[in-house]
């Protein structure tokens, strides 16, 4: 049929947002749909307005790629009014949306933190670097906190990273932490962009053997770092390419009269360690990878 899909992304130039959008757009075009993309270039208000404009132009569905649904209440209300499916990827659950395709960030935070605690045997010193502004990052930290609450022997230092400038700030903060804490055991970082600078700082201080990093996201750069078996110990990887495809699928079935049974559709993440990391240049196979370290150990 003749479906018009409006895709909005608050910052299309961010690589993982681009992958979510591109995979969804490619699939929609395969289905013969007409697709229009709007890039907010960081401007959430413009992004919202663009979504409204799509609906005003009688688009059949809205796909929101990774801009917090909590900041799109007006858009979601309007979509409900016009009976237009509103599906998002990685944008959080709020009332009124058709579905959000994402991951259980709290659970992912728990996985990474549990693996970390196990590796330092439940005792030691850990630094957590995060940016407590994005909802997904807050959820991950919530998972991390929940795990750490169970290990009174682990001392946690929390650092709020400056955004923008996160990469450089993470590098500086990691350096300072390593200097100020000779007994530091590990870093937990909120998202993968911070892994490379922290790894650099660890290598530079010559403590590759004692200090490691865990994270969540699974961007190619970090998969590669993990594979190299350096301080980047593991990351909880998301299937971003699949998110776009699933989102379009959900829109398709909703338009056909079969809305999804639940509003929060989580995809299986994947625990990537040195042993389970994909070979250079290859991408992660989400159908086979494990979710817990034991599986990958047993799998080898």
């Amino acid at each position, binding site marked *: 049929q003749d479906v018009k899909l409006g895709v909005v992304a608050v910052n*299309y*130039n961010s690589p993982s947002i681009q992958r979510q959008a591109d995979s969804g757009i490619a699939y929609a075009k395969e289905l013969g749909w007409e697709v*229009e*993309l*709007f*890039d907010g*270039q*960081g*401007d*959430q*208000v*413009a992004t*919202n*307005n*663009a979504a*409204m*404009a799509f609906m*005003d*132009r009688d688009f059949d569905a809205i796909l929101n790629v990774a801009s*917090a649904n*909590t*900041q*799109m*209440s*007006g858009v979601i*209300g309007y979509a409900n009014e016009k009976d237009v499916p509103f599906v998002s990827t990685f944008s959080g659950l*709020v009332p009124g949306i058709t579905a959000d395709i994402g991951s259980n960030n709290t659970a992912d935070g728990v996985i990474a933190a549990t693996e970390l605690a196990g590796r330092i045997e439940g005792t030691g010193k850990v630094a957590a670097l995060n*940016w*407590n*502004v994005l*909802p997904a990052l*807050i959820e991950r930290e919530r998972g991390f906190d929940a795990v750490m609450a169970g290990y009174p022997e682990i001392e946690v230092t929390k650092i*709020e990273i400056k*955004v*923008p400038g996160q990469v450089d700030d993470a590098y500086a903060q990691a350096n300072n932490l390593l200097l100020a804490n000779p007994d530091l055991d590990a870093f937990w970082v909120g998202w993968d962009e911070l892994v490379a600078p922290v790894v650099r700082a660890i290598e530079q201080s010559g403590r590759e053997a004692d200090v490691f990093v865990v994270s969540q996201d699974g961007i190619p750069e970090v998969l590669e770092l993990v594979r190299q078996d350096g301080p980047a110990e593991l990351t909880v990887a998301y299937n971003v390419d699949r998110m776009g495809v699933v989102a379009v699928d959900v829109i398709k079935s909703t338009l056909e009269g079969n809305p999804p049974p639940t509003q929060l559709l989580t995809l299986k993440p994947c625990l990537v360690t040195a042993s389970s990391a994909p070979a250079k240049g290859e991408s992660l196979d989400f159908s086979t990878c494990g979710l817990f370290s034991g599986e990958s150990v047993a799998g080898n």
Partner: protein
Amino acid sequence: MTTSDTAKSDPTPARKFDWIDFLSRWGTLLSLVLLIVLFSFGRPEVFMTLRNMLNILNQVSILGMIAFGLTICLVVGLFDLSIGAMATFGGYFAARFLMELGYESWFVVVLVILAVMALSALIGMLNGALISKLGISAIVETLAMSFVVTGVILGVSGGRTVYATEIPDAFTIIGQGKIAGVPNPVLILLLLGLVLWVFLEHTQTGRNMYALGGNREASRLSGITFSKYALIAMGISGACAALGGLVAGANLGAGRPQGVGDVYLLNAFVAVFIGASTLKPGKFHILGTAIGVLLIGVINNGLSVMGVQTFWQYIVQGGILILALISASLNTVRRT
């Protein structure tokens, strides 16, 4: 006593049409029209609709409010780099106060908005006081202030966003509602533009501001105290930025502690300077700023409607700005 009287005859002999002068005045407006025509041919069914026009206006409304405020302080000759932080400030604190108060009433919302704008005006006036009383560089002082404001917002918020469910609907309607089909932000923008236009062009305060911007020493000797007008101008700039951020917050239904204003900072400067190359080259004025804001809106909307990739939007916007500057400078250059 001999007198030849050839000298003081017609000062402007019938000259040929002055292309350079024409271009320097009308070039920007012309390029705006040209772009509209271009996009209209490209996607006639989308671009040239009333809906899309309103959409463009809506897209630029927040940028417009911030840029209008910036125009005022540039008229006095002061740069304000704190507008980004002030926009975030306005959006966050309006939402935060409303959340803390927890009343769902028009009255409270209006009160909170006024309070936040007054607070922002005060911070702006503090900028103005520091700049004019101590004679320090406005660029750097406002930059420093923006660090302080950013820190305060982060400290107060703990990084946590205030969400729609915590904010009364009476507030969000400011950003999301419509009157007679026109989105509220557009109405606010038009109203603000009108008020500031009258203020700058037709009140004594505005005229004195232009005088200060033109020649500060001569103004002082005409009894116009710089510090007073610096205070007013920076206060207005701060309040307008906060208003912009506040409308953005109402539109999003969220009080975000970060990343609201930064997007608008540079574009506001671009818009105001494009404006100063329009109609009255070399002068900052509200109408010019409005044209600058529209130009940015049309470029972004048009290219996006045409399906052009984002990076082209950056390039085209930068390119057009350079062309606007060049056309505005033509008049000056040929004099030497």
